[in-house]
C-alpha cells in the first residue's frame, strides 16, 4: 500500500483526527490572533512601567487595578462612556426602526434597493472625513449654527452631545441593517391578520412587529454599543474637553508610555461587553447577528 493511500485510509477510519486537522488552521488563527492577544493584554495589566523611560517592568502586582478602582476619575470616565454608548444606541434605535419599517414593508422593491444602497454608501467613506465634516458642521460658523440661528438657537458646539450625535450617525447603518433583515423576515400575513382583527397601525406595531423584531434591535445594539465603547477619535475631534475610556487608554500609551495601565483600563470595555453579551443572549439576539 502506497503512503498516500495509507494516510487517506487512516484518516478515513479516524473521523476525529480528520476533523482536527481540518480545523486546526483556523482554530490556531483564532487562538493566536484573538485569544492570545486578549491574554497578553490581561497579563500586561499586572505589570508596571518605568515612569521616566516608559519601559515595561515585569513586576507582578495588583497596583494598576487598585488605582483603577480607587481613583474616582476612572469611575467617572467609565460612567460617561457607558452613558454615551447607551445614548448612541437609543438614538440609533429610534431613528433606525421607522426607516427599516418603511424599507421592509412600505417601499416598492426598486425604492428598497435604492434605500439599501443609500444606507451602505456612507460606510465606504473614510471615518475621519465623516467625523471632521461633523466638526465643521457643528463649529461656531458652521451649517448647524446657520440653521439653528433661524430659530433663535445656536449650535450645540463641541461636547458630549456632539459626540453622541456624531457616533449615532457613524453607527446608524449597523442598526438599520439588522432591523431591516428582521422585518423582512416578518410575514406580511401577520400584519394583515392584525388589521383584520381590528388592530390599528400603531397597535400592530406595538403588539405584533415590536416583539418579533426586538432580537434584531438588540443585535444592532451590540454593534452600536460595542463600537461606541471602544471609540476615542470622535470624542477627540468633536468632544471638546471630554474624554472617554478609549482616550484614557490612548493617553496612557501615547502620552504616558504606561502600557500596563493602558491594558488595565482596556479590560473595562472587554468586561462591559461580556456582561452585555451575557444579558442579551437570553433575547435570542445572538442568533440574529
Amino acid at each position, binding site marked *: 500500500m502506497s503512503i498516500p493511500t495509507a494516510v487517506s485510509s487512516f484518516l478515513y477510519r479516524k473521523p476525529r483526527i480528520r476533523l482536527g486537522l481540518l480545523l486546526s488552521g483556523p482554530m490556531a488563527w483564532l*487562538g493566536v490572533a484573538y*485569544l*492570545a492577544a486578549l*491574554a*497578553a493584554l490581561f*497579563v*500586561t495589566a499586572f505589570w508596571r512601567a*518605568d*515612569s*521616566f*523611560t*516608559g*519601559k*515595561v*517592568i*515585569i*513586576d507582578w502586582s495588583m497596583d494598576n487595578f487598585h*488605582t483603577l478602582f480607587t*481613583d474616582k*476619575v476612572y469611575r*467617572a*470616565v467609565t460612567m460617561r462612556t457607558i452613558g454615551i454608548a447607551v445614548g448612541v444606541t437609543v438614538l440609533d434605535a429610534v431613528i433606525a426602526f421607522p426607516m427599516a419599517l418603511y424599507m421592509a414593508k412600505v417601499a416598492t422593491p426598486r425604492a428598497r434597493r435604492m434605500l439599501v444602497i443609500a444606507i451602505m454608501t456612507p460606510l465606504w467613506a473614510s471615518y475621519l472625513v465623516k467625523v471632521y465634516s461633523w*466638526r*465643521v458642521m457643528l*463649529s*461656531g*460658523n*458652521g451649517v448647524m449654527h446657520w440653521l439653528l440661528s433661524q430659530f433663535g438657537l445656536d449650535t450645540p*458646539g*463641541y461636547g458630549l452631545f456632539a459626540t453622541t450625535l456624531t457616533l449615532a450617525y457613524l453607527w446608524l447603518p449597523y442598526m438599520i441593517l439588522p432591523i431591516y433583515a428582521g422585518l423582512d423576515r416578518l410575514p406580511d400575513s401577520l400584519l394583515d391578520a392584525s388589521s383584520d382583527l381590528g388592530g390599528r397601525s400603531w397597535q400592530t406595531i406595538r403588539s405584533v412587529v415590536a416583539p418579533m423584531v426586538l432580537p434584531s434591535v438588540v443585535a444592532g445594539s451590540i454593534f452600536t454599543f460595542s463600537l461606541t465603547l471602544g471609540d476615542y477619535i470622535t470624542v477627540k*475631534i468633536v*468632544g*471638546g*474637553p471630554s*474624554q472617554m475610556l478609549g482616550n*484614557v487608554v490612548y*493617553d*496612557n*500609551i*501615547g*502620552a*504616558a*508610555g*504606561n502600557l500596563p495601565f493602558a491594558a488595565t483600563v482596556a479590560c473595562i470595555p472587554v468586561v462591559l461587553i461580556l456582561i452585555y453579551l451575557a444579558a442579551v443572549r437570553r433575547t435570542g439576539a445572538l442568533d440574529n447577528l
Partner: protein
Amino acid sequence: MYRKATLAGLFCAVLTVAACGTQSTSSGGFTPPKLEAPTKLGAAEGALNVLAWPGYAENGSNDPTVNWVGPFEAQTGCKVNVKTFGTSDEAVNLMGTGQYDVVSASGDASLRLIASGDVAPVNTALVPNYADTFAYLKNRPWNSVNNVAYGIPHGWGANLLAWRGDKVAPAPTSWSVMFDANSPYKGKITPYDSPIYIADAALYLMAHHPDLGIKNPYALDDKQFQAAVDLLKQQRGNVSEYWSDYLKESQAFNSGNSLVGTAWQVTVNTAKTQGTDIDATLPSEGATGWSDTWMVSAKSPHQTCAYQWMNYIVSPKVNAQVAEYFGEAPANSKACAQTQDTHFCDTYHAADAAFASKISYWTTPLAQCLDGRTNVTCADYGKWTRAWTEIKG
C-alpha cells in the same frame, strides 16, 4: 479537561513571548546606558526615517513652496520618510519602536530618550555645522550628560498666548485670561493637551502666588503640585477643547470655537494664511518653551544618512528656513544672515542668551527636585501624567 490543558499551554506561551519582548531596567538614578558615538561615517544608506515636530521637516506636502527635504534627498540620495508628532510623549513612545533614525526632541523628551538607551551619543566632529551653533546652546542639561553631547541643537522658542484679534479686546498681556475663573472668554479657551502643560499653571502661580515658593515650574513639591492641579481643574470648566494637533487648533481659532489659547508661532502663522485675525504674545509672567535637539537612534541602520541630515538641517540656510517657517530662534549663529526677514533674529532674540534664559524650557520632572531642594520630594512625570487624566476628568 482537554480545554483546561490547552488554555494553560496557551497562557504559558503568551508569557514566554511577552517576557522575551521586554527587559527589566533599573530606574531612579540617571546613568545613561553605555553607547558609543561613531568615529567615522560610511557610505550613505539611501534611506532615512525622520521623526519630527510638525513644521521641522517639510517636504512640500503641506505647502508646495515649503520644501527642504527634497533638496536633501537630491544632495545625498537618502530617501526621507517623515513622521510628525504632537507631544513629546508621543515622540518618546515612537522612538521606543526603533523605527526612526533621527528625532527632533524637546527637553522633556531628550533625557528620557537618553536614559532608555533609545538614542546614542553624537560625535559632533562629524557634524561640521555644529561649530557655528550658538555657544549658549552647547552641552546643556537637556542635550548632554556629563559633557557628552547627545544631539545637535536645532532652535528654541516659547509657548505663546494667542487670541482672536477681532473678538478679544483689549489685547491680553497676562495668562490670567486663560486661568482666571471669571475670564470673559469662558468656554472659548484652548490649552495644550499634555501633562507638561501643568508647568504653565505652575509658572502662572509663580507670578501670582509667590507664597507657594515655586522656583522652577518643573520642580513642584506636593503642596505646589496640588495648587497647580487645582488651578487647572478650575480652568477645565472654561475650556473649549484641549489641543495637540496644531492644525485642529488653528481651525478652531478660525471658526471661533476657541478665542484664546496657548499656541506655537506656526499655529498662528497657519491661521493667518487662512485669513483669521489672530495675534500672539509672550505674556508678562513669562512662558514655558522648548529647546530642541536632533538626536540619532541607537539602533539606526541609516547612521550616515542620519548624520548628513543633522548637518543639513542645522546648516545656516536650512536652519533659517525652518526657523522662519516654524517661528522660532535658530540655533545656528550664521542662520541669522540667511533669513528673508532681516530683523527675524532680533524679533526672536536668537543671539540673546539672557532672553533665552528667561524661558522655562520643557524638562522632564523628576522625584529629585530639579531646583536643588533636597528636603522634599518633587512630583515625578508619572505623577504628572496621572494628574493630567484627573484634570481632564
